[in-house]
């Protein structure tokens, strides 16, 4: 256990140092978050106070939806970039010869990518409340429950992207699904009840929808864990299926890459 924590510390430190030494990138991310918030604030104002999806004001509704959705997309993207960069520089092959099991190494790297973006999510939500005066009614325990289960889903998505990247150098498929293919099914910007029946049915098979709905209930409506049981149950169910599947996929793709000699292909 101590060895695993030592490795996680080493990976977090590497990613943090790399992040802060990209001096302009550091600023761009935070300016980007504020610009996005401002755009949604004015969009909500333009639409007017009459539109209250789920009984809450539209700006806080957007704040939670887009914040969590951005967290999923950016963290998966960050993790995928780490894998692609390691393939391009040749670091991937060397990392696979260390005393750390390859699957453990990839999982620890993904935790690091998600931890960084969790900070971004916190800054985004705090800025929404502090600067743009979003009204919140938070239940901290419920927020933690949604967040932990969302992290499990995010981890599974990240590992799936890594598996596809290692298997046939196309981890971007997961990014496409998240960022353009299925984003409107997540309910990040409008209630999915407005979708036609087949798409509404499909949206219920999309775990991001439950993460966003759960977080809205916990952060904006003060719902407790018991009230959020359906969303939390769905998230736990998806996590229980997707995470082992993603781990199996990763293990399979790594073994296949070692057999084919394609670990550093990109």
């Amino acid at each position, binding site marked *: 256990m101590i*060895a695993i924590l*030592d*490795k996680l*510390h*080493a*990976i977090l*430190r*590497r990613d943090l*140092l*790399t992040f802060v*030494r*990209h001096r302009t990138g550091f600023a761009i991310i935070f300016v980007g978050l504020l610009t996005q918030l401002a755009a949604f604030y004015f969009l909500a104002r333009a639409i007017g106070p009459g539109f209250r999806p789920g009984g809450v004001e539209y700006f806080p509704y957007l704040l939670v939806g887009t914040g969590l959705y951005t967290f999923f997309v950016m963290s998966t993207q960050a993790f995928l970039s780490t894998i692609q960069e390691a393939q391009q*520089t*040749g*670091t991937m*092959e*060397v*990392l*696979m*010869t*260390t*005393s*750390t*099991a390859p699957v453990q*190494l990839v999982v620890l790297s993904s935790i690091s990518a998600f931890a960084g973006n969790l900070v971004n999510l916190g800054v985004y939500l705090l800025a929404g409340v502090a600067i743009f005066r979003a009204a919140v009614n938070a239940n901290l325990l419920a927020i933690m429950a949604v967040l932990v289960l969302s992290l499990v889903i995010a981890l599974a998505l990240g590992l799936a992207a890594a598996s596809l990247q290692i298997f046939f150098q196309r981890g971007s498929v997961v990014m496409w699904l998240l960022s353009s293919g299925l984003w409107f099914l997540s309910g990040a910007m409008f209630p999915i009840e407005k979708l036609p029946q087949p798409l509404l049915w499909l949206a219920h098979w999309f775990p991001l929808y439950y993460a966003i709905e759960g977080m809205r209930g916990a952060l904006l409506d003060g719902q407790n864990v018991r009230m959020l049981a359906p969303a939390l149950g769905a998230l736990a169910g998806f996590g229980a299926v997707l995470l082992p599947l993603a781990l199996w996929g990763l293990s399979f793709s790594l*073994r296949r890459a*070692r*057999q*084919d*000699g394609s*670990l550093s292909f990109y």
Partner: protein
Amino acid sequence: MDQVVFESVRKVFRSRPALFNWMGRERAGETVALEDLSFSAAPGEVLVVLGPNGSGKTTALKLISTMLLPDAGSVRVGGFDTRQNAHHVRRHVGIAVATERSFFARLSAGENLEFFASLDEVPRRGRAERIGEVLDETGLEEWADTLVMKFSSGMYQRLGIARALLKRPSVLLLDEPTRSLDAATTAHFWNTIRNLARQETSILLATHNFAEAAEVGDRLLLLRRGELLADRRIVRGESVEELRAFYFRSTGELDETAVAMRSVR
């Protein structure tokens, strides 16, 4: 017991045709990288692997490191099979590959080594000292705090060697380790190799450098197109010219340097 054992190893790389291969000229089919290769390396032995480009030298080293898995036959390190017990094998093996850009560009040399020391489970107690030792051994101590993106090819190569030495491997794999090194560093590195061998480290060194082979090698493996052409001892005091002549005689390649020298005389 031999530290490294290859038994009838075959390794093939398959190239699947692209979907629209008719649009380009991508080569499809199989490339046999190693064919029925068997050899072993004893503790403390320096095994020099020679051969033309594409002869399978790097593939052999990658198979030992578990970067690759064999298609047939077996590779064992310290008694552990690389397919069944890869995790145990990796604890024994340190590798420095020829194309050394495999570091994190925005970390310093010391930070990179700290990162890899952690993944290689170098004990926390004494880790800083060990990093200092390998930096000193490779002449990088004064660049410990320099970001590696500012490094030259030679410095990258030295750092690659430092990383390979970190966990005190019982098997050290070196792929053209002195390709970008200056003369003084090369001479120092050859001393390091001899010291490690005296401490019972098995060393497999793939090279095109006959002087290196003559200087540090105990035994020579000669590969061509994945097949073993020769496996023999390097006699102490054997000259570079003798090794060179043996190489060209065995591979059947034309030694244009020797031809040119004869025409000058």
